[in-house]
């Protein structure tokens, strides 16, 4: 279990604080997105270049993109800090979703050196953060299987895996731990699919082999 302080809903902030925070948060997310796009474009561009030119462009552009990324990081941090200061200065009187202001809550906790739960009061069970839903891609993998196996084997096993996933996800809150969990469960889903195929294949093989057996032995086997 990691020691990251738990995030709880921010209680009762005035409507204007809510609006300001939402705008700041949206802006910081847009900047972060833009930064990712620029970095992605740069990598793509560098990869597309022929070998000799690549080094020259890399040397030239690294400084530009590096400086830009640093500027964006500083701006992003400043925005988060601004959110935090605004949040601390205002009387909190309306409920805000903590998920939307996760960064601000974390900054407050770091500034005051206290867990978020102490800063904002105890979490309301009704307002607890919902878990992210099970990744759709893993659920879509089931369509690799024939319908019979999917219904008989995969679906109930997959639901058990999902329950396990949510239980584990609830315990660990840091980004690294959650990334690791996602990787583990993706792997387990793939193993589950392979296991389903193996079980189904073995079953088919045994059924075929029983047709080769003499009748009394076949009857004895098939009831098992």
């Amino acid at each position, binding site marked *: 279990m990691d020691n990251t302080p738990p995030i709880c809903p921010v209680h009762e902030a005035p409507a204007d604080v809510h609006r300001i925070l939402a705008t700041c948060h949206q802006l910081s997310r847009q900047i972060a997105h833009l930064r990712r796009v620029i970095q992605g474009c740069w990598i793509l561009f560098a990869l597309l270049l022929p070998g000799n030119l690549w080094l020259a462009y890399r040397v030239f552009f690294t400084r530009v993109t590096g400086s830009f990324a640093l500027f964006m990081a500083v701006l992003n941090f400043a925005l988060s800090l601004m959110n935090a200061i605004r949040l601390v200065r205002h009387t909190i009187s309306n409920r805000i979703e903590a998920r939307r202001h996760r960064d601000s809550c974390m900054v407050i906790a770091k500034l005051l050196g206290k867990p978020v739960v102490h800063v904002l009061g105890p979490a309301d069970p009704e307002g607890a953060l919902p878990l992210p839903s099970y990744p759709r891609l893993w659920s879509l993998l089931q369509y690799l299987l024939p319908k019979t196996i999917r219904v008989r084997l995969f679906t109930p096993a997959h639901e058990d895996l999902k329950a396990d996933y949510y239980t584990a996800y609830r315990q660990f809150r840091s980004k690294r731990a959650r990334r690791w969990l996602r990787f583990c469960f993706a792997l387990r889903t793939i193993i589950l699919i392979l296991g389903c195929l193996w079980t189904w294949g073995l079953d088919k093989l045994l059924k075929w082999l029983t047709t080769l057996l003499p009748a009394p032995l076949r009857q004895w086997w098939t*009831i098992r």
Partner: protein
Amino acid sequence: MPVPTLTHLQFLVLQILGGSQRPGRYLRAELAKNAQRKSLPAFYQMMARLEDANFVEGSYRRIDIDDQPVQERCYKITAPGLKAYHSTRDFYFQSSLNTAKGGVIHG
């Protein structure tokens, strides 16, 4: 007395089920306690066979884990299942009695 139609594993599953509806996860955990570890697909294959033989009845039950819905597969013993369980239990009981008496032939 006829030879039982249930394998030892199926007998154990029906015994764990008892008279109540139990989720697949619970059954699997109980089987593991009895040193019968099975992978998820193998376990549900076994349960599907029991369902095909009409010994158990399976249904999905919705549970929420922190507001995330999960459809849990639950199983309940049926009347034929109960009958098969009793006949298997009687068979083993009778066999153990005969063994205690020194066997059927020499008893």
